[in-house]
């Protein structure tokens, strides 16, 4: 049985995202939607896995704005609904969110946004909490995995009380952490949907609705005054008062305990971070004249509490605020227990050593001297490596210094060594095609470089279609390389409209990429990235002929999906008599340049060698070797 459906009273080791899913199920959620994006992806994935059994609707929507609209509609019809996204997704959804706040919600509506401090799997570092302030919506921040489940469950009730969507901000170290979670009851009955036509959901009259929104926010602040998600632990008058939220709280707790400062430092955990529970907070601020804020990404609490203090400083007296503003803690990157401990050590002037200094220097020296860095790159057998190889060769043959504009997905690694540094821009979903619309119209001013852009199959449905329509309408000249690897690979192989599968696993109509591109007026060709010579030739022809947007669909399944489903295509072997090693004159084209981890250089023989544990048998490297030393046999 799926652990998120285990009976009440059991303790399960759940990922933060699974805890959110369980909390939503305990609250009786009926409609859930998202577009995949780490670190949020497993929320919908785990709900989808139990959708049939629980009789709920769970979908992968084409983008975050549509996802939020899908769940808001369910809320208007009185059902509890949940939408999940990563920080970038909030940017996509926010146009709707900043109108939805005015119409309000019906059935409990919870929006989870999982931020990625340190950009561990993101193209940016962004603090989505600012959207709660921007949209005047209540915001919760869980600090533990158990609390993540409880808060999610409660957020539905809160949303119904306030008739507003409730935002929950998670971070990577909550969403992707696992811990013990005590399960609660699953509901037996759920309401039937009905849209009350006498109460239209429109933002007009805007000013009146804006005033009502502030009233609701005031009501939220009142509720938060007594919330059990806000707590203080420590002495009555600590030398230092730490105010923490989210993952910062456990780091701060660990720092205070390991430094032996539990009698000197107080630790306040704030779970309801917008609107602030003013009275409660002012009372807490009376405890100490030194305050340190521990939170990730922007100084959100820090700025808002300072603002509050400014209004109350005549009664509170002078305080010293520490945090990101005075660089007590770093302005960027994710926190950890060491960073927080260091800040506390500096502020209270205490000495602490985590391990003997002599050991530390030996350990660091050994790493520095003997451990090479390990850059990330395309997996063995990845079709993207082959695609970029063809791009590199076609652009070289064309000779006009063509520009390849990038997009978000595994293929973003095209900016690095295993994509031969071909990709020259990287921004938001669909921005490659949008930028191509711009560069592709600069020929009249004398830009003679050909323009190319790249996107994946899932990204195409998300945000590339409008750019392609724009290109055709305005006459932009570029080639769109549409890398169809049969899934949303980067985030864990979620299905999309081109795969013929829904989130629940049911079959769905296939929205044909080629037909859509043709309908948008683009010329379309198809190629197999594993056929290097043919693909290079097709690309070169497209570069030199044709006008307007041209699309080259490059079809090959992701190597990881292929690896799960079938055995190797080919058994690869190096003919040791043909491989000339360093005498070849190719300057190790196979390993130095092509860089597939399945093909390694053997320093003992001075020749190439297949690493059997890694090679997936795609057969592409056989075409790379000028001495034809790499052999492939059908496996």
């Amino acid at each position, binding site marked *: 049985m799926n652990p998120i459906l285990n009976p009440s009273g059991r303790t399960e080791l759940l990922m933060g995202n699974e805890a959110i899913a369980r909390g939503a199920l305990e609250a009786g959620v009926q409609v859930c939607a998202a577009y995949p994006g780490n670190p949020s992806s497993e929320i919908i994935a785990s709900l989808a896995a139990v959708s049939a059994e629980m009789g709920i609707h769970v979908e992968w929507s084409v983008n975050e704005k549509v996802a939020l609209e899908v769940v808001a509609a369910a809320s208007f019809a009185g059902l509890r609904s949940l939408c999940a996204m990563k920080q970038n997704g909030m940017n996509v959804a926010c146009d709707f969110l900043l109108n939805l706040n005015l119409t309000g919600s019906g059935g409990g509506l919870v929006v989870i946004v999982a931020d990625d401090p340190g950009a561990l799997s993101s193209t940016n570092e962004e603090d989505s909490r600012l959207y709660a302030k921007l949209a005047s919506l209540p915001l919760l921040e869980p600090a533990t995995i158990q609390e993540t489940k409880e808060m999610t469950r409660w957020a539905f009730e809160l949303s119904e009380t306030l008739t507003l969507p409730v935002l929950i901000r998670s971070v990577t170290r909550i969403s992707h952490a696992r811990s013990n979670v005590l399960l609660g009851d699953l509901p037996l009955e759920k309401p039937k949907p009905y849209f009350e036509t006498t109460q239209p959901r429109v933002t007009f009259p805007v000013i009146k609705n804006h005033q009502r929104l502030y009233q609701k926010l005031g009501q939220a602040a009142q509720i938060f005054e007594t919330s059990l998600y806000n707590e203080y632990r420590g002495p009555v008058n600590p030398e230092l008062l730490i105010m923490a939220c989210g993952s910062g709280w456990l780091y701060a707790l660990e720092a205070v305990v390991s430094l032996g400062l539990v009698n000197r430092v107080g630790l306040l955990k704030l779970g309801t971070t917008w609107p602030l529970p003013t009275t409660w907070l002012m009372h807490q601020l009376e405890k100490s004249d030194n305050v340190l804020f521990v939170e990730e990404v922007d100084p959100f609490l820090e700025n808002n509490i300072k603002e509050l203090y400014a209004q109350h400083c005549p009664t509170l007296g002078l305080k010293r605020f520490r945090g990101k503003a005075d660089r007590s803690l770093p302005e960027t990157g994710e926190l950890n227990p060491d960073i927080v401990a260091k800040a506390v050590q500096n502020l209270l002037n205490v000495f602490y050593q985590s391990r003997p200094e002599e*050991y530390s220097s030996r350990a660091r020296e050994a790493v520095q001297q*003997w451990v090479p860095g390990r850059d990330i790159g395309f997996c063995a057998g990845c079709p993207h490596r082959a695609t970029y190889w063809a791009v590199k060769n076609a652009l070289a043959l064309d000779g006009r210094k063509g520009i390849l504009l990038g997009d978000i997905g*595994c293929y973003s690694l095209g900016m690095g060594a295993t994509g031969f540094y071909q990709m020259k821009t990287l921004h938001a979903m669909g921005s490659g095609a949008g930028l191509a619309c711009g560069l592709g119209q600069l020929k009249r001013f004398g830009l003679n470089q050909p323009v190319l852009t790249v996107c994946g199959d899932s990204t195409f449905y998300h945000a590339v279609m409008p750019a392609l329509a724009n290109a055709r309408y305005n006459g932009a000249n570029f080639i769109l390389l549409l890398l169809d690897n049969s899934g949303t690979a980067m985030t864990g192989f979620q299905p999309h409209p081109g795969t013929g599968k829904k989130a629940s696993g049911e079959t769905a109509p296939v929205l044909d990429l080629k037909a859509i591109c043709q309908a948008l007026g683009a010329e379309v060709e198809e190629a197999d990235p594993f056929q290097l010579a043919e693909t290079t030739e097709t690309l070169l022809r497209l570069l030199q002929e044709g006008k307007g947007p041209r699309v080259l669909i490059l079809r090959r399944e992701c190597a990881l999906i292929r690896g799960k489903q079938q055995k190797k295509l080919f058994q690869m072997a190096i003919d040791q008599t043909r491989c000339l090693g360093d005498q070849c004159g190719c300057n190790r084209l196979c390993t130095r340049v092509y860089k597939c981890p399945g093909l390694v250089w053997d320093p003992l023989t001075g020749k190439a060698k297949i690493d059997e544990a890694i090679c997936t048998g795609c057969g592409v490297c056989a075409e790379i070797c000028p001495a034809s030393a790499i052999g492939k046999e059908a496996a």
Partner: protein
Amino acid sequence: MRLPSDPFNIIIGGVGGQGNVLASMILGRMLVSQGSIVTIGETYGASQRGGSVMSHLRVSTQNQFSPLIPEGKAHLLVALEPIEGLRMIGQYGNPDLMTLINTRPIHTLEVLSGKVTYPDLSLILSKIKELSKKVWTLNATEIALRMGDPILANVIMLGALSALEILPADRVVFNKVMGDLFPPERMAVNLQAFDHGREAVQELA
């Protein structure tokens, strides 16, 4: 349940694609089923694409800890790749560290490209030995390849770990947890991998 220390901090690390996350989840569930409070922090996303990856397991009978182990505070290190083992010791090691190493190297991109050479394995192991209280080794990848699927190396390492008897994580517990996670047809091969790991592990002299 008794732990060698509380919290007991474990790192399982290696290269993206070696099954590091699954190994940490299996071990975590084994320990939860024995009554501990476990928190796991892991690297996901881009790092999966051939980069260094690691999972931090904080095991306690009392409290929940943060999903990240502080510097120098690992008690047990399970490395699925030798230089990754040494890399993790650099940040999390201490004189009392116990280390279990899969001796099969995976070349880095810089090694592939010939910019640097992969360091001599015996040298890496001797450095690890100097920086650990005890070290155990086995070539889990080689055993997995002989069994027909390199991905089994992670379960072979869990078997090896159970043979060290540091944690209450024996075959019976493994069998139960795997039964919850895997379809019946995958059980036999995983149990076999677990047993091979138990048999192959040796203390490094």
